[in-house]
């Protein structure tokens, strides 16, 4: 249960960070700053990858859903 809570916290933190990165993508577009927008896009994809990993570790997705229980 402890690790489940840890993964849940990680997902929430990564989702919050992704929201911030999405705002940076918009800001990059508004400022015509490709580096900011592109960097935020790359970082958000990394965050999504980690979210998927956390969900998998929690047993919510993937072929072995019971693994996390």
């Amino acid at each position, binding site marked *: 249960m402890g690790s489940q809570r840890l993964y849940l916290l990680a997902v929430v933190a990564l989702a919050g960070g992704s929201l911030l990165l999405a705002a940076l993508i918009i800001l990059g577009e508004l400022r*015509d700053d*490709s*580096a*900011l*927008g*592109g*960097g935020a*896009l*790359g*970082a*958000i*994809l*990394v*965050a*999504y*990858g*980690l979210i*998927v*990993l956390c969900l*998998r*570790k929690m047993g919510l997705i*993937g*072929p*072995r859903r019971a*693994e996390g229980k």
Partner: protein
Amino acid sequence: MYRRALTWLLRQTLKLDVSINRVYPTDWNPLYYTGGLSHFFLFVLVISGILLLFYYVASLDGAYASVRYLTEQVPYGFILRGIHRYAADGFIIAVLLHLFRNWFTDRYLFARDGPWISGMFLLILGGFIGINGYQMVWDQRAQAITEIFVAILQSIPLAGAALVRLFLGSEGISGAMLPRILFLHVGTASFLYMLLWWHYVRIRHPKIWPPATWVLALLGLVILLSALPGTRPTAGAAAQPGVPVTSYPLDVFFLLPFWLVSYLPPIVVGVGLTVLLLLGYVIPYLQREEEPQMGVRHAGIAQVIDGNCTGCELCYYDCPYDAIVMVPSPHPGLTKAAANRKLLAAVMDSRCVECGICIGACPFEALELPKFLEADLTRRIAEAIQAQPATA
């Protein structure tokens, strides 16, 4: 000595697997997907390469200007270049991991020599395409590596000049060079997919795509590296044929041989590389001697017991060597389970490695290794048990 080194490397590889499996779910261990990761990076390379082609001008006057325009004027242009560049690095890293992993875990013996040989071609052509890619930019680095490439080729006795004409279209740097390099870059990349077909054709369950977490994370990493100030691709100084290049940034994944030329004669680097690559091709044939297992050296090609086969396809799916095919059954089987079969298993002799996996897969006792029958195995086990001294 070689065999002992391989055994040690196998143990270290398996230890590494165990360590990574503590962090990642076992079916998401990236080391189980080195082939899929290579394929993923190749896919990214093809897509980004097609987009880059829209801007590239293949001429001595236009190439550098077009790359500079893309990098500095086109929105997200430098990121597109970065994706192509870092995906190429990722491709080589994944291919090398794939090569070493399969080498250390003995996945190149017997019927798997085909994937090994095609994999070596993929590695060599991948490296060649990468070098071509650096030439296409036609900056000072491109000029330097082209001059070194010409020097290495010219150091080859008899064929050197012809090879230079083949790869550059003339005796040296000329207007005919960049269109030819573009063709070699794109044409050879297309040829990689034909080699991939050869690479996959004999593998029953190839993992050709990594799990979503790796796709997202690695694509993100490639884009991130393309955008960060320290790793962002920039337009260097334009090439000036005739003016010697004193230094250029080095990509260790593709340009290491060119760095070696600074310390060794071109002929030594050329011969060394050739010998190294040829050694790569002979690896599957270095340890052909077989160790008898339970006193049996050759178990014989697996044979289907026609009367028992139900056509269930379990052996067909389980054979890792693609040695079993299902054919329309010419007549019903003899047993009750086989009476209404539609298909019949058939073993392709040239592909069977006598491993016995199909026998384990078959619940109907419809396969056998002719020199290693189940009855013999049971008898041997019974004899071995009887031969053991009684314990309290």
